[in-house]
């Protein structure tokens, strides 16, 4: 395994930061500081972090409205992320986009997206662009199980196969698309086997095991970088929160949620770090304290940030 102790601790810290960030965002939403819909990635942090840590900073990425975790893992300044959620001028999208439209090309982030499936062809284009440049950058696109039934996504799979584009299709199968069980909406056992029909190698990973996600994604990234074309990854994962703030979750049982909660990586990963990797408890506690301090600073920064200037409302319609 190529992961060193420092990497493991960084993984833990990032996962925890994402969890606490999302909890703070939920808080802001309930307090009315944050408008519109908020789709927390609570429960999917190991999936997000494992995958994004397999990338280089200059690799390209598209994700969805449930993308805060991926973006923070990729290096988006969480203060700018929170400011965006509060609609402030200092937000990563200047307050114009909100929760579903974080964008930061400086870290390779070509945008979250509020249209299911729409990020996939964009990632294929970005991958093709890298290939045409003769660079070894790769692109990754994150999407949910529900997106697998969108035309744009299926067309993107074929384009990537036909062009042998250096792109990773990363499907976070959290069992539900909004309130609908994905199992009722497809004719195959797995989502991964869909990709095989397009001639794209596919694998299934345990999205609650951050190390496994990291290792499998690293394989896919290595193949793409070496000119071996696209890979499809289906990560079995779960959200421990509703689809969005306000979802009363009539479509799933408490038992099911509790079963997954028992495996919650935010709880189990530090235990594993101690047992399997002999990392001292106090190092883990230090990280917790660090994250708490960071969250306080993130919230303060966002709340104290200025509102966008109304005179600039038309800025950025065109380049």
């Amino acid at each position, binding site marked *: 395994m190529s992961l060193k102790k420092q990497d493991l601790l960084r993984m833990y810290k990032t996962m925890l930061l994402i969890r606490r960030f999302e909890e703070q965002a939920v808080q802001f939403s309930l307090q009315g500081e944050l408008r*519109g819909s908020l789709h927390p990635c609570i429960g999917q942090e190991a999936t997000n972090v494992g995958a994004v840590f397999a990338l280089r900073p200059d690799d390209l990425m598209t994700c969805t409205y449930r993308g805060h975790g991926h973006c923070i893992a990729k290096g988006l300044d969480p203060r700018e992320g929170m400011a965006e959620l509060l609609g402030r001028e200092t937000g990563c*999208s200047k307050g114009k986009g909100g929760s579903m439209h974080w964008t930061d090309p400086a870290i390779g982030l070509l945008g979250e997206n509020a249209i299911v499936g729409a990020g996939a062809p964009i990632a294929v284009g970005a991958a093709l662009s890298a290939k045409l440049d003769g660079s070894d950058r790769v692109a990754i696109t994150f999407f949910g199980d529900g997106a697998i039934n969108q035309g744009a996504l299926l067309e993107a799979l074929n384009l990537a196969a036909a062009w042998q584009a250096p792109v990773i299709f990363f499907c976070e199968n959290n069992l539900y*698309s909004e*309130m609908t069980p994905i199992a009722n909406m497809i004719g195959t056992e797995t989502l991964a086997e869909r990709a095989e029909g397009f001639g794209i190698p596919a694998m299934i990973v345990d999205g609650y095991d951050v190390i496994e996600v990291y290792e499998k994604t690293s394989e896919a990234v290595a193949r793409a970088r070496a000119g071996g074309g696209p890979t499809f990854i289906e990560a079995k994962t779960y959200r421990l929160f509703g689809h969005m703030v306000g979802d009363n979750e009539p479509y799933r049982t408490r038992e099911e949620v509790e079963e997954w909660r028992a495996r919650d990586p935010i709880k189990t990963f530090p235990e594993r770090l101690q047992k399997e990797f002999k990392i001292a408890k106090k190092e883990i506690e230090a990280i917790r304290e660090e994250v708490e301090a960071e969250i306080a600073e993130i919230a303060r920064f966002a709340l104290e940030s200025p509102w*966008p200037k109304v005179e600039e409302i038309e800025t950025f319609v065109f380049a």
Partner: protein
Amino acid sequence: MREITYAQALREALDEEMERDPNILLLGEDIGVYGGVFKVTEGLLEKYGPDRVIETPISEAGFVGAAVGLAMTGKRPMAELMFMDFAWVASDQIFNQAAKMRYMSGGRVKVPLVIRTQQGGGRGNAAQHSQSLEAVFTHIPGLKVALPSNPYDAKGLLKTALRDDNPVVFIEHKLLYNTKGPVPVEDYTVPFGQAAIKRPGDDVTLVSLSRTVLHALEAAEAAAEEGIDVEVIDLRTTVPLDLDTIVQSLKKTNRLVVAHEAHRRLGIGAEIAALVQEHAFDYLDAPILRVAAMDIPIPYSRVLEDVALPGPQDILDAVRRVVA
């Protein structure tokens, strides 16, 4: 008369029509067990079963296309697009297929399809979940377009839509679902192509539609306090468009303001202004004014969204200017 919400009125229309006509069936995302994200289809799966309340994958192009096929073979489907913005995903099936089938076939087939959706901003849902697109559907021949502003019209217009033999784009507003209003228990319909005079007045004709009608009425009350008597007209449908009611009103007021939440550029206000100058130029004593959303993607931040979208104050300002 009893008062019910807009959402409840829509549900009653679906329920009563489904009971009346076994060929009516519903397709859409999360419309079954969950009852739709705005709860309009709540209870219908239990009552009519999965053959008539069909939960779909997130495949708008697919299920709207399937609805066209269902419609061409004797069914009367209602396809629900959770947000208007997703109509773009299904756009080929709407614009190239549903809208043109009847004409291209020389009348050999018909497409009795209702596409129900909701639009509009004001909730901080940002640029891909806040668009108002009635003008786009109004532009493409072959589609009828309805936009109820209140529970009574919601029920009556939806019944008309479900009984129509043509594709109807039925556009609700996300901030109207919880508004209440009087709705009779007895069966009734609201015909297409008949605007409603919501408030009679002698000084200014104020034409509006969907949620903006509520803003228009508020502005009219404020104007009344300044001695300006505004006639508020709710278009209710943009195809067919009731030009006659507008012209009759203009004969009295000689002044016209059109207000809508869609973008100003080529919005329904532009069409009405053009029609009025073609058909009623002689009755105008002042330039026609439009109140509309700015020509920018709908911004997220509340301080920007509030400015981008038209409100009662913007309408009142236009009313004052048109009489000045």
